[in-house]
């Protein structure tokens, strides 16, 4: 396996490009972080205010899922190329996990 630098011929151009790219990405990271903060606020707020459980539980579950998507796709770069296998395996794991949780909530006590 050669250890190429994924660069074309001209190092100067590439460097500038890379720096700009990663700056840009960092901006996305900040945005997703603020979104995550925001979602967390809403979740805690909804519970703090004391809406009915029928409303709150689905809401906070939804917020948590969105937040996790942010984590996975931006913080953990799952949106990038080269993450096909990780994506498949993580979501398979998630699916199996969710089935487990569903089963435990439905058929452990009856």
């Amino acid at each position, binding site marked *: 396996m050669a250890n190429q630098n994924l660069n074309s011929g001209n190092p100067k151009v590439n460097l500038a490009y890379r720096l700009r790219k*990663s700056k840009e990405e960092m901006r996305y990271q900040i945005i997703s972080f603020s979104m995550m903060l925001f979602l967390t606020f809403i979740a805690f707020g909804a519970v*703090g205010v004391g809406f009915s459980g029928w409303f709150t539980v689905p809401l906070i579950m939804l917020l*948590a899922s969105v*937040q*996790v998507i942010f984590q996975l796709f931006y913080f953990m770069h799952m949106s990038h190329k080269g993450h096909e296998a*990780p994506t498949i*395996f993580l979501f398979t794991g998630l699916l199996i*996990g969710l089935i*487990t949780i569903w089963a435990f909530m439905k058929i452990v006590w009856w």
Partner: protein
Amino acid sequence: MQTEEKMTFETWPALPEKATLEGKNKFLGFWLFLGGETVLFASLFATYLALKDKVPDNTHALAKDLYDLPLTFVATMLLLTSSLTSVYAIYQMKNFNHRKMMLWLGVTVALGLSFLCLEIYEFNHYVTEYNHKFTGSAFGSAFYTLVGFHGAHVIFGLVWIIALMVRNAKRGLNLYNAPKFYLASLYWHFIDVVWVFIFTVVYLMGMVG
């Protein structure tokens, strides 16, 4: 092709964590491991949900008696922010800035430690104030096992990051240690992912009742 070869900003690749075959393998292997961890935590969540509020008699505290919104909120903020700081660390790693990367890792560790202290305080509080013990009820066992497993992951993550920092303090970045830093930060993010579900499913839903 030497992985420990000295690199410069100019020769530093765009994806240092995957620039070598070893890096690529570790990267993939670690992600797969996280796939397995997902099932591990799902099983623990499932157990917790099945045993939530299952206590021998009504002298035992239930979820809604225990949890405390501000405390959970602070813990969440700490961990969430530490996730961002580790993103910064990796950002600096990609920029081949060893010093700044170390700095951000340091901040991450500090935040992680504060989270841990808070958790220890919380557990202690439950035991002394509410007599909510690991051995007291099925609910207690399930609660401490789920949250404690997460806590153990935090500890492991901290030890890992600290060990990496100490080991590489003087060495600078190279293609041998770049994947290691990257994986440690992935791990740290994953801990945060799990925490998102813990604060939602255990704490918030516990308070909703």
